[in-house]
């Protein structure tokens, strides 16, 4: 009887645990897909909050925090208006993104994806006051990308971000549409061979690259 009891308890616990994980997969799948289709800041904030809830509940998964940071950054970048943003609005967003990303980084040290997001946060901060912040955040972003490259030189998003930098920087300041195009093509090749660890791992960016390649033609 005792045996049965423990067995049932074990089954129960296992079943429960399994259900959790199934739930994690299912919820995450839906929300990760939503990141690609949400184009308004309020929606992204809601998504970010959802991811943070999942992260806080799971405690050991870095992906929810990673996506929370990504959603925050994207909501900040959406505030962009003519190449710059209002720092008073976007700095708090960057702070939130960074807080979430730090939680992800604590769970997965030395992850190229985390470094790539660091670069995006640096970009967001820089756009708050490009003239004065270029020296600090330009450098910070470049360092994060360099680190990402040493961690995983095959990550296509590294080249995508490099290409975007080249694309948007005025030629007078070292930008180049031609160099951008080459980098976008490199990113495309990397995407072709890039295998995410799981369906939940980051795989975004391909459509952006396709868009820019079409633009460059």
């Amino acid at each position, binding site marked *: 009887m005792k045996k049965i009891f423990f067995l049932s308890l074990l089954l129960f616990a296992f079943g429960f645990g399994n259900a959790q994980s199934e739930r994690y997969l299912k919820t995450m799948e839906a929300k990760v897909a939503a990141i690609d289709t949400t184009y308004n800041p309020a929606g992204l904030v809601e998504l970010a909050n959802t991811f943070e809830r999942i992260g806080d509940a799971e405690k050991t998964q870095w992906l929810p925090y990673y996506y929370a940071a990504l959603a925050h950054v994207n909501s900040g970048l959406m505030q962009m208006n003519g190449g710059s943003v209002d720092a008073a609005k976007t700095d708090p967003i960057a702070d*939130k993104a960074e807080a979430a990303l730090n939680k992800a980084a604590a769970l997965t040290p030395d992850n190229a994806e985390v470094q790539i997001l660091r670069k995006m946060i640096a970009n967001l901060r820089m756009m708050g006051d490009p003239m004065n912040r270029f020296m600090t955040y330009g450098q910070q972003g470049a360092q994060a990308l360099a680190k990402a490259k040493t961690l995983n030189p095959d990550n296509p998003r590294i080249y995508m971000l490099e290409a975007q930098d080249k694309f948007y920087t005025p030629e007078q300041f070292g930008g180049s549409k031609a160099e951008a195009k080459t980098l976008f093509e490199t990113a495309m090749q990397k995407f072709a061979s890039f295998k995410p660890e799981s369906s939940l791992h980051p795989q975004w960016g391909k459509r952006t690259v396709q868009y820019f390649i079409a633009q460059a033609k």
Partner: protein
Amino acid sequence: MKLLLSLLLLSCSLWSQAQKAVSGTVKDSRGKVLPGVSITLKDTYDGATADSLGRFSFNTTEGGKQVLIASMMGYKSLELPLDLQATLSPLNLALKEDITEMKAVVISAGSFEAGDRKKGTVLTSIDIATTASGNADITGALKTLPGAQQVGESEGLFVRGGTAAETKTFIDGTLVNNFFFSSVPNVAQRSRFSPFIFKGTVFSTGGYSALYGQALSSALILESIDLPEQASANLGISMIGFSGGYQSLAKNKKSSFGGNYSYSDLRPAFSLIKQQQDFFQTPLFHNADFNFRIKTSHTGILKYYGYFNWSRLGFTTPSLDTLGYNDLFRLKNINTYHNLSWRESLGRGWKLQTGISFTYNRDTARSGLASEKQEEVLVKGMEFRNLGWNNRSEYFNAKLVLEKKLKGLSALRFGSELNQVDEQPLFTLYDGTRFSGKIRDNITAVFSEADVYLTNNLAAKVGGRLEHSSLMERTNLAPRVSVAYKVGSNGQASLAYGQFYQNPETRYLNGPTTLNFMRATHYIAQYQKVANDRTLRLELFQKDYDNLVKTSLQNNREMANSNKGFGYARGFEAFWRDKRTVKNLDYWVSYSYLDTERDFLNYPTAIQPSFAAKHTASVVVKRFVTQWKTGFNAAYNFNSPRPFFFIAPNGNGGNKFLDRGETPPYHNLSFSLNYLPALGKGGAKQSTVLVLSVSNILGLHQEYGRRYSFNGQRFEAILPPAKRFVFIGAFISFGVDRSQDVINSNL
């Protein structure tokens, strides 16, 4: 047993099936709805985000006792126990605001901050260097801000009716004693240090913190740069000389060292641009500086900056005392300045900032009558005009500040400061008689200050400073208070009050009269609004002076005889900066109204001093045209007439005016241009900047007052050394694209 188990399992699954709705609204403590708040059932996936009306609702399959968390950046998180078994009515949540740096008011009465990321910044370091009328001199740019006068005949910042000696400069916390090159009669000198070496500037025109003392009017607080971004080398050549430097950076980015040398000779420039003075020794400078910076921990940094300068010049001007003769002036200066500072977080909210600085300065100078051939001569009855002096001075300053972070943004700061003065002037008269003075003074101070943030909207800074001068054997206690209150979303109003003490200038300290500290009391009211790249500042002030030094002539020497001088200054100032209205154009306008009178030194009564104009205004415009790779900067400065006068003894032991008048109004339009030919060669490891700058481009007549003959019977207008000055230079840097910096330095 089986039954029990299955019941248990059943109930479990029943729980998880049951959906329960949770809903409500979130507001702040004043009842304003808060959109975007994240609502979470602790440790579950369930929750929602408040919509634009602060409403939220979600369904949960959880049961039993849970904790609901409402959180948002800038607010304190709220935790609410929730029993999901019970019936739930809509929740009304109220979040309390957190006191954060982003939102909190900044105590800003009286001060202009120039930094890179600080809030309340009015000018950045880049702005300081690209101001057309500033000639890449820190104080030149600050003169376009309200509060500072456009005095052209002597160096220094004359702030709100104060003398230049009433403004003190601090680098990394410690006092700087010879911030400007040694004085030359009727020619304003530049400040010694390049704007390049500073990352932050606070120009306080009154009401400043108890951490700073010995300045009646104004404090210029400079913070030197930390580690450079990259190693680099630079070369410069211009019509006044050449320069070169190297800055290294360790691979681990934890330490750096570097040095610069520059040689300037104004002979070629002066042969092209005619000067008022007739130079027999054109100004010549050797300048070297060294630095190292070491990160002592994640939060700490040790910094050293050392400066060496050797300069000489000599000129004559037609004498007003005896026709056909010249007045001669010759000066040789050696100056060295060393600053070592350390800042570190000590943990548990404690921070340490400490530094020492040492200055050695020697002026070897002669003035007197000279022949037409510029050779010194003794003229009968005028022999006393020929005088030489050799002033050696050493200064040692040390400061230690401890800071303890309290709740929220509140903080407590306290510490101590030592300013040691050792001056040894030696005068030689025409007949070889020498007299020397010796002044040694230890000014010791302790201070304490608290920042109190009551809410994000209301903050106060309360402090006090206790000072003792060993030479005067006097002690003073100076209270300082300022309060800032947020008005609307981007505006704030501030009030400041403070007492400020300063020793009389050392030249008055070796007389027979025992002197006391001079005192100024400041009252300031300010309104500031910063939004969307536009800044508006309005300031009202009143400043009362007591215990100013009065002097009288004793044996042909001006000696202090009492502390009975007094005065006042009151006025209104406005500042407007706009980077937004016209694309790619950045401009600022400042205006100061000043009503001031004082009775000090040898003044017969209280009068408006010669260094104060009623109205002062500046307009500064900057534009970078990317296609042309060129930046254009212009500045216009104006002041209304300034008084001038000649004071002579009246025969009854007092003084009288022999002559009084006013200068014409002053107008100056300056222009500068920076061309970056290498711009666009992306990733270039070398960059060049060509600089052209012209002062008084319209060639307007400018007058700074009058200089008089010894007896006051003859006089002449004081004019700028040259009607128009043109500067051309080229600067190349290697290793790192510093084009942005170099444009900004202009020199």
